[in-house]
């Protein structure tokens, strides 16, 4: 990587967008890169639309503002597509990754998006099947690294294991998250 990569996360309060941004940042740390991970702070309400941001670079990151023109946009919740302008500022050659059961072509149609690359993955279904709850941050991380090639999927697996274990999460829950990451990485589709 020879430049700054800026990722904007869209989710709803409680879905783990902030944590996902931090796991990605910590993968950058392991890779010897510079990074920033920060949420957009507001009233923190379960279910309300929120944004989080991650910057990754091979140079120290000087910018200390929100990301206006992301290289990558990740949408953790399909119901945000109708309410939040998720493609705002997305670079013409940028990547949009959406948690949805729809195909990339259907998402392009819905958002009237003619540029960039679009990826989709049914992270909600994967989360329900692996975690038993619709918390989509870990599967979306798996899909993200697969779609962008930013890091190896196993690097994210390792980061998630470390972070969640440090937070005293039960071993079976940690493993369920790891299964979710790997499955999403396999199932993510481009179109």
């Amino acid at each position, binding site marked *: 990587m020879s430049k700054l990569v800026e990722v904007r996360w869209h989710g709803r309060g409680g879905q783990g967008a902030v944590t996902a941004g931090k796991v990605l940042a*910590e993968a950058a740390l392991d890779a010897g890169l*510079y990074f920033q991970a920060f949420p957009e702070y507001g009233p923190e309400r379960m279910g309300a639309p929120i944004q989080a941001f991650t910057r990754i670079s091979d140079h120290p*990151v000087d*910018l*200390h503002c*929100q990301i206006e023109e992301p290289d990558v946009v990740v949408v953790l919740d399909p119901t945000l597509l109708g309410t939040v302008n998720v493609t705002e500022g997305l670079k013409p050659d940028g990547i949009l990754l959406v948690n949805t059961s729809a195909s990339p072509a259907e998402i392009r149609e819905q958002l009237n998006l003619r540029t960039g690359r679009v990826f989709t993955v049914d992270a909600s279904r994967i989360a329900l099947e692996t975690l038993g709850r619709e918390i989509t941050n870990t599967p979306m991380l798996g899909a993200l690294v697969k779609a962008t090639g930013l890091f190896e999927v196993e690097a994210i697996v390792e980061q998630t294991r470390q972070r969640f274990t440090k937070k005293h999460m039960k071993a079976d829950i940690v493993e369920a998250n790891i299964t979710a990451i790997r499955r999403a990485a396999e199932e993510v589709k481009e179109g």
Partner: protein
Amino acid sequence: MSEFKALDGTGAVAEAMRQINPDVVAAYPITPQTAIVQTFSEFVADGLVDTEFITVESEHSAMSACVGASAAGARVMTATSSAGLAFMWEILYVAASNRLPIVMTNVNRALSAPINIHCDHSDSMGARDAGWIHLFCENAQEAYDTVIQAVRIAEHPDVLLPVMVLFDGFITSHAEERVEIFDDAKVKAFVGEYKPKHSLLDLDHPVTYGPLDFTDYYFEHKRQQVEAMRHAQKVILDVADEFAKTFGRKYGLFETYRLDDAEVAIVVSSSTAGTARAAVDKLRAQGAKVGLLKPRVFRPFPAQEMVAALQHLKAVGVMDRAISFGSMSNAGPLFLELAAAMKIYDAGVPMADFVFGLGGRDIVPSQIEGVFRSLLQIAETGRVSELVSYVGVRE
């Protein structure tokens, strides 16, 4: 060996405090406190530090407990933010006037009303005349490095003043970044042991702190505080030199970026200075001769040094994240201070103030480029049409 960690500003400062292992930390543990004290309290509970950790019922009490502990001869640290700092106001003066080398981080956040939890510099700017040394930090790494230096600056026998380490609320305090954490032993060796010359618990050499001091000696004590502040500048630079030799990163009174051959420059502190560097690079690529000065030491204000760095310019714009209400044109504190210095030391450079980011309003490179364009226009015409303008506000 240093270790690189993913930490936000509060986590980085808590690490520095763990390594410094102060004798006493007294703090008010809930809002508007930040995670600094929460994380540090975990270090206390885990036995990683020997600190006497005193939780109190208010920030006024927090600083009062710090004053008592410091007068007793302890190495004392605390942390606060926003309204918490405002509530300490009376005791801030007591700490400085008693020449107590307390080190406090203040996460810069707006004051009420309306209620706001986000970044601006109103809190510490309101305390700028309280007698504390003020050091601004751009990011988590600078905050960590500066807290370590602050202990040495505060406790230096020529200074003996409290130090406030300042960084931006949420932007720096809550953003995770790559931070170099030094070896514990190296930090301990750098800060050394605190051996106060005068302390309440030194029974062989009894002293009194803060007695009545009416018309007879109060004025002399204030005069001595001025001397301490005058000495602080050299000590800040000496400690920075030693820090650079030990840990490799160089700090000064301020930092300049592409300033030497610039025609116009922005003066802005803290996190926004980083964003401004991106704006400088973009405009430089287009051939505009723009530069940046990032103040680090706000108290004592390095007037002559800043003028020397800026006097070759054709226009200087100050970006203030606070307003001094009722001052000349309702300008910001940094502008007022620098404008006075530029006049007194005959710089003769046109200046304008750009107030921004109040209550956490985001500021992006394109807005800073706009400030540079205004300055280039001032440089061309030699005329300042608006002394104070507002960046990113709805009029």
